[in-house]
């Protein structure tokens, strides 16, 4: 007998209570064990006091890092040199496959395009907004609204934009905002946005730009505020103004921050697979490296190829993250 709506809701609430109870129970258990360990270890005194403290405080974190990051890192590199069920050594064949197959060429090309376009547009827009929003009334409101997409998941953002890009046959009432707007502007037969390659690549990138522009704006706005007045006073006395001042004084003064913002968005862009996965599933010529890695590894179970793609992704991200972290550390130490 099919359940009625009320019964369905009832069982859903029961299920919820059990799950949340388990989850809170796990937290209580975790904290309880820690308290007991603290109590017992706290009684160790004298010669054993310090080593016990070090083991208790650092042990769990170090163990989890070894099991969860260090060992997998090594193993992924190892797997990338083996065939897809890891029974044979292949040498560099997986990498050869990644660099010579046509379909992967398209993937790498798309990834490069994403890497070049999305971060530059997001950072540029963020910089323009940071400069323009200064001294405006309701400044905080504009900033929050532009920053808001950063709070939303990339899956949520993708659905929001998929709806914007929804297209119907010309002549039917449109329900997607983009189609409606361009038709009102006089474009009689707009394409089906998501299916139209290479346009769809850029429409997907727009989602990333939508999410990251607020981040760029907030960080750059803070950097601009931090430029000391006396440093630029001289330039102004020399007669620099407007755009010249912007290019020769403001931009050089915030160059480090600009580069950090750019590389940060690049890192996010390289690793994000959510947008492509949710909007097109990698079809219609929109596939990128991060999503291809996921598909190879966990949809087709080609462990060797998936690992090789992960290593390529790692090597691509490595210089960007390394640069960022060094900058972050420098800032911390000079402050």
């Amino acid at each position, binding site marked *: 007998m099919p359940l009625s709506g009320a019964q369905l809701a009832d069982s859903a609430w029961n299920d919820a209570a059990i799950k949340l109870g388990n*989850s809170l129970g796990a937290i209580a258990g975790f*904290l309880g064990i820690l308290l007991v360990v603290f109590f017992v270890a706290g009684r160790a005194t004298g010669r054993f006091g310090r080593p016990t403290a070090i083991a208790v405080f650092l042990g769990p*974190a170090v163990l989890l890092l070894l099991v969860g990051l260090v060992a997998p890192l090594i193993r992924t590199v190892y797997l990338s040199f083996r065939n897809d069920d890891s029974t044979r050594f292949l040498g560099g064949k997986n990498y050869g496959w990644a660099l010579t197959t046509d379909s992967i060429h398209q993937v790498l090309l798309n990834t490069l395009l994403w890497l070049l376009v999305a971060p530059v547009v997001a950072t540029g827009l963020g910089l323009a907004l940071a400069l323009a929003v200064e001294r*405006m009334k309701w400044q905080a409101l*504009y900033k929050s609204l532009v920053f808001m997409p950063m709070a939303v998941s990339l*899956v949520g953002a993708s659905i929001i934009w998929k709806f914007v890009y929804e297209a119907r046959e010309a002549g039917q009432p449109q329900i997607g905002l983009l189609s409606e707007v361009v038709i009102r502007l006089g474009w009689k037969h707009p394409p089906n946005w998501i299916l139209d390659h290479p346009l769809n690549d850029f429409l997907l990138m727009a989602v990333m730009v939508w999410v990251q522009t607020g981040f760029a704006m*907030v960080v750059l706005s803070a950097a601009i505020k931090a430029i000391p007045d006396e440093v630029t006073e001289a330039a102004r006395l020399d007669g620099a103004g407007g755009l010249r001042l912007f290019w020769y004084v403001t931009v050089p003064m915030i160059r480090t921050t600009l580069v950090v913002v750019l590389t940060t968005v690049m890192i996010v862009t390289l*690793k994000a697979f959510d947008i492509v996965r*949710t909007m097109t599933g990698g079809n219609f010529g929109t596939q990128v490296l991060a999503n291809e890695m*996921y598909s190879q590894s966990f949809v087709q179970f080609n462990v060797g190829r998936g690992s090789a793609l992960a290593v390529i992704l790692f090597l691509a991200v490595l210089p960007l993250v390394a640069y960022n972290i060094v900058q972050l550390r420098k800032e911390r130490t000079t402050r």
Partner: protein
Amino acid sequence: MSTQTSSVTVPLPAVKAVRRSFSSPLGSLFVVVVTVLWTLPTFGLLATSLRHQQDVADSGWWNVFTHPELVLSNYHTVLFEGGFGVSGGLMPYLVNSLAISVPATVFPLVLASMAAYALAWVRFRGSDTLFFVIFALQVVPLQMALIPLLQLFSGGAHLGSFTVLPSFDLAGTYLPVWLAHTMFALPLAIFLLHNFISQLPRDLMEAAVVDGASHFRIFRSIVLPLCAPALASFAIFQFLWVWNDLLVALTFAGGTPDVAPMTVRLAQLSGSFGGRWELLTAGAFLSIIIPLIVFFSLQRYFVRGLLAGSVKG
């Protein structure tokens, strides 16, 4: 232009002059246009989720301005009943999101603050090196760890024929997701909290030691209370990171209503719900409402945590 007249009367510093030229009427217009563009898609999502099925199918959401007829029934349908060809509602997934996110925030927060305290205040030979290694682990992208970690959770660890770790039967529980999130959060969490904890006043720590307090006591009664702001920032960042995550959940939770969170389900539905936009938009809005509430109510902590965490791997 107004820039010229004011630069004659008040000699503005150069940066202000730049700002002025950008805060011209044109600049303000630009900001307003971008803000509207940035807000409109989310508003469209909300509006669509509140309209009748037939209205959504026949007309664009901008018609709510002329025909404001709103209902909440889509939310009931999508939560408890499911939709066309999709059985079961989103309620279990929403619960899973919460049941995953809260422990996956508490575990790394506690373990990282313990580790950060030891690295900062219980110095030992090699502690600097260890801190640097943990710090450097931030460069490892998640993708590098997924396959081996999944193999470990499902098959155990073996060296030749010797079993180092047996296979745990964890499928269908939250444990793999909690563990994976905890592991991946640690490098950044330890780094951030270490920065904060190492700045605590030395006198205070030394006084506590002189009074005979053990490290455990110092950690509980001095370090944790003083670190509350840093802990709050990181907690908010981590909670939203987990709540919004798709990659870890998809890999370690599978797609079943037992464990999978909202993001996983929505990614599936965005393919299969097809024409039922009033349901998909309601589902999507349910998944973004909690981050939005957190964002608008705790904006300062949120921004701080987010900026600090922007390099997370």
